[in-house]
């Protein structure tokens, strides 16, 4: 019998009933008395100076109540305090097609929409930049004047261990280029916010956000309204995947329009606008050099990435570091060098999408590991098992590893798929591929420097035994409300259905930093567990008095606090609540969580990568390639995921399957691409997210490593499982047709192209992918030389450690 009464059971989510009856209230479902409807005017130019914005005709339009422009909110904002380069609405310059320029509030949405065409914007076009290579080279065109070199947003160089010695000791060195195309989250719910500045001079903002706390801070900065007068309520997000974790123009615009009109204002983006809001996966070019001994032991890795960041910073500083930070946590790497460059281009800003910055390098690295295994004639699964980073260790870049279940994941996959026997044996057109991965259970540092908890929770009981949990987490569909209820219920010995959850409300709930970086289960879970255990102690003390049994003999489950030695002796939970309130006074407890110190290094840039625990996962993909049409059908994806402990296995499987689905979409065709600065496919007809008929059979295998520091042993499950799916499919396509896809997505067109082409020696083409930075207007070799030169210069300055 399980030691738990709630944890590990497939109980329905506490918030599922609202979802299933249409009672869940998303932001756009809110209709307030006297509410106005807002719409945003967006830039039609990729790069232009704004000479003048004339709103007079729009203001005069019947039914229009207010119009605001960038000049009304010129304060810089952005999610990362150190790189704030955006304004809520464009002030004197636009940097991508779709950037918000002005906002209208009107009596109804049709009127607001009509009024947009009456706003006259006088643009002076500037030369746009669309590619990484141009951005690196063009000193004469500056998307942001602050950029020191050309259009470089951030450049990082980190080196660990003896890289020169490592490569010298290698028997074999692979040097591969990769390109990962950008793509977007495409949640089914578009962004929406309702603002209400009331007669008490207080602003309430209901919004589909993953980060109510960070948004709270930015609202104060941009609106000039003290934070004490602002309340942010994160409504249930209808999907987010990282796409709702920045502060957005429409949120500030709704707030300011409400302050101007003293009426509620709603702004809901339409589907096309969601593609401009973006903050999705960065397009990344990568070069990976890996040295290995004859037996495959890695001696050194040099990883370089060039990120196309789009027009603004977003999380870009973190994204840049993330491309290099987590390659070291899966396999032993004794020497490691990372160079990363993120550039500005005149496209919608890129940001965090599920797997944030780790998805692209993991794709490249796992494809390369597959190549190394082939070069050395090793079984790719056995090879990975042989070089695993051990549990309870430090990586070369000083990351603390605790529980580590990648080996068990690989074993589970071999049992489920017989990968090793089937690889290379399925015949032409059929293939099987494998990849491993890891992810963080929450970022080790908050976005702004502070010593406060990353997550706080309050818990109270009413006199009927009802329990209310308050925590600032944002429910984005990942199941955070249910996680809070389940952890509290397990700790107190009641059922999740008896727990009321108040989440995502900056006035009612203690701060949780937000639903990003897969941090909620680990961090908010620990905070609520801490709070619940304190409350439990009060209840148990009162019950012990009543039962005349020592408190340490009492257990709690199924609504009873009972004597371990004589379970017939018990106090019902509701009675214990009354006894405890009589004994202690009003029953409230608070808990908090902050990651331990020392989980990462102390060098500059060490803040990105550490986490209290890494999740591990691996995937096997099985594919069929149609040799006539080039269509790749992914028949099945099996993913094994080490989530520490599955608090609710059904929900863990849901995250693992959903991740596999999203990864599948990314490699098989989703791409956020542009023509002359115009988005090529800003609709769900053209940007094809997989339907039920496209999606492979998905199987999730849960591996439980039971992490010592996780709440009841749990780690993350929401993001990591996406990562291995993409390289597993690429490796499976190679197994099927002998062509390496060193770029995503793998479209039918590219497959046909590869199958029909021969290289210079007349041999069939065996690889699709970049050979370096592209030739274009600029000289890519020069760009590369310059980058290498600056890297080397820094290298000489810093002593080898």
């Amino acid at each position, binding site marked *: 019998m399980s030691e738990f009464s709630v944890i590990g059971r497939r109980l329905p989510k506490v918030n599922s009933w609202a979802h299933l009856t249409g009672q869940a209230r998303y932001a756009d*479902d809110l209709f307030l008395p006297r509410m106005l409807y807002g719409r945003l005017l967006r830039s039609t130019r990729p790069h232009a100076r704004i000479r003048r914005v004339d709103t007079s005709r729009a203001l005069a339009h019947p039914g229009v109540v207010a119009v605001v422009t960038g000049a009304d909110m010129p304060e810089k904002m952005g999610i990362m305090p150190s790189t704030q380069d955006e304004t809520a609405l464009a002030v004197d310059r636009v940097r991508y097609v779709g950037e918000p320029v002005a906002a209208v509030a009107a009596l109804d949405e049709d009127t607001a929409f009509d009024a947009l065409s009456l706003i006259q914007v006088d643009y002076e076009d500037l030369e746009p930049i669309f590619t990484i290579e141009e951005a690196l080279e063009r000193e004469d065109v500056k998307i942001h004047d602050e950029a020191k070199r050309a259009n470089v947003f951030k450049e990082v160089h980190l080196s660990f261990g003896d890289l020169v010695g490592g490569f010298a000791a290698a028997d074999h060195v692979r040097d591969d280029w990769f390109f990962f195309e950008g793509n977007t989250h495409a949640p089914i719910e578009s962004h929406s916010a309702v603002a209400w500045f009331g007669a008490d001079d207080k602003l309430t903002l209901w919004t589909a956000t993953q980060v109510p706390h960070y948004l709270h801070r930015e609202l104060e900065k941009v609106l000039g309204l003290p934070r004490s007068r602002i309340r942010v309520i994160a409504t249930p997000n209808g999907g987010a995947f990282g796409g709702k974790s920045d502060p957005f123009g429409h949120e500030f615009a709704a707030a300011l329009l409400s302050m101007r009109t003293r009426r509620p204002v709603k702004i809901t983006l339409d589907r096309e606008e969601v593609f401009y809001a973006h903050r999705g996966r960065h397009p990344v070019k990568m070069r990976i050099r890996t040295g290995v001994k004859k037996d495959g032991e890695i001696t050194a890795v040099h990883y370089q990435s060039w990120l196309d960041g789009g027009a603004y910073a977003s999380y870009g500083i973190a994204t840049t570091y993330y491309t290099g930070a987590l390659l070291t946590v899966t396999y032993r790497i004794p020497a490691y060098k990372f160079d990363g460059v993120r550039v500005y281009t005149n496209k919608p800003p890129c940001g965090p999408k599920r797997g944030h910055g780790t998805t692209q390098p993991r794709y490249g690295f796992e494809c390369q590991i597959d190549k190394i295994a082939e070069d050395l004639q090793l079984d790719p699964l056995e090879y990975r098992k042989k070089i695993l980073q051990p549990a309870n260790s430090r990586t070369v870049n000083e990351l603390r590893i605790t529980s580590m279940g990648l080996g068990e994941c690989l074993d589970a996959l071999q049992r489920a798929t017989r990968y090793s026997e089937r690889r290379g044996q399925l015949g032409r057109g059929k293939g099987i591929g494998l990849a491993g991965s890891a992810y963080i259970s929450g970022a080790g540092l908050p976005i702004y420097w502070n010593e406060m908890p990353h997550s706080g929770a309050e818990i109270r009981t009413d006199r009927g035994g009802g329990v209310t949990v308050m925590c600032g987490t944002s429910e984005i*569909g990942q199941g955070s409300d249910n996680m809070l209820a389940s952890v509290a219920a397990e700790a107190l010995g009641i059922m999740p259905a008896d727990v009321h959850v108040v989440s995502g409300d900056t006035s009612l709930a203690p701060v949780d930093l937000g639903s990003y970086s897969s941090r909620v289960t680990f961090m908010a879970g620990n905070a609520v567990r801490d709070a619940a255990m304190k409350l439990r102690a009060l209840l148990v003390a009162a019950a012990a008095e009543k039962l005349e049994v020592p408190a340490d003999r009492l257990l709690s489950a199924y609504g009873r606090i009972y004597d371990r030695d004589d379970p017939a002796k018990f106090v019902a939970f509701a009675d214990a609540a009354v006894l405890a309130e009589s004994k202690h006074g009003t029953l409230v407890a608070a808990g908090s969580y902050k990651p331990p110190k020392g989980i990462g290094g102390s060098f500059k840039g060490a803040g990105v990568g550490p986490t209290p625990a890494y999740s591990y996962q691996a995937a096997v993909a099985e594919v069929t390639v149609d040799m006539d049409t080039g269509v790749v059908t992914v028949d099945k994806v099996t993913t094994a995921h080490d989530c520490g402990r599955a608090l609710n296995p059904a929900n863990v499987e849901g995250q693992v399957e959903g991740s596999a689905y999203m990864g599948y979409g990314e490699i098989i065709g989703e791409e956020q691409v542009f023509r002359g600065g115009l988005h090529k496919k800003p609709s*769900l007809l053209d940007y094809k997210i997989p339907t039920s008929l496209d999606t492979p059979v998905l199987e999730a295998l849960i591996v439980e490593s039971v992490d010592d520091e996780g709440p009841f042993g749990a780690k993350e499950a929401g993001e990591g499982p996406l990562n291995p799916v993409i390289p597993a499919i690429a490796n499976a396509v190679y197994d099927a047709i002998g062509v390496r896809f060193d770029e995503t997505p793998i479209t039918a067109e590219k497959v046909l192209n590869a199958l029909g082409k021969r290289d210079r020696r007349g041999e069939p083409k065996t690889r699709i992918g970049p050979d370096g930075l592209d030739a274009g207007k600029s000289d890519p070799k020069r760009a590369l030389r310059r980058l290498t030169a600056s890297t080397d210069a820094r290298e000489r300055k810093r002593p080898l450690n």
Partner: protein
Amino acid sequence: MTKQLLTLRVNGEPRTIAADPHHTLLEVLREELGLTGTKHGCELGECGACTVLVDGIPVLACLTLPALVGDANVTTVEGLAIGESLHPLQIAFAEEGAAQCGYCTPGMLMTAKALLDTTARPTRAQIASAISGNLCRCTGYTAIYEAIEKAAARA
């Protein structure tokens, strides 16, 4: 624009409203009748989030003008439960974790109901085909298949 009086039968109830004639069934349900359970994801007929039943047939409310519905029966997610009892699909979706963010769920449920009303024990291929116009970005569809199969088995 002049509003027009319109009487619809929604979830078995006659409802008379005044609405702009170009407003869609989706807008009328959500904004005039307060039935916000029906969602909008694209308003271009791409995502299926707004699926409702018109005389038992799934239609995209975002592409339907109310005037064309006439006196047909419109069923939304709010009309899925029978009195105090939830529909077997709702229970099965909860048990299987088939709703993550829940945003595609109302449309998905209506499509699934139309399927089960005509095909008592659908195969997985039939389910996949039936829900192929309802995009879900969270689940990968597996839990949805399992929930629909479970509801069918209980009926």
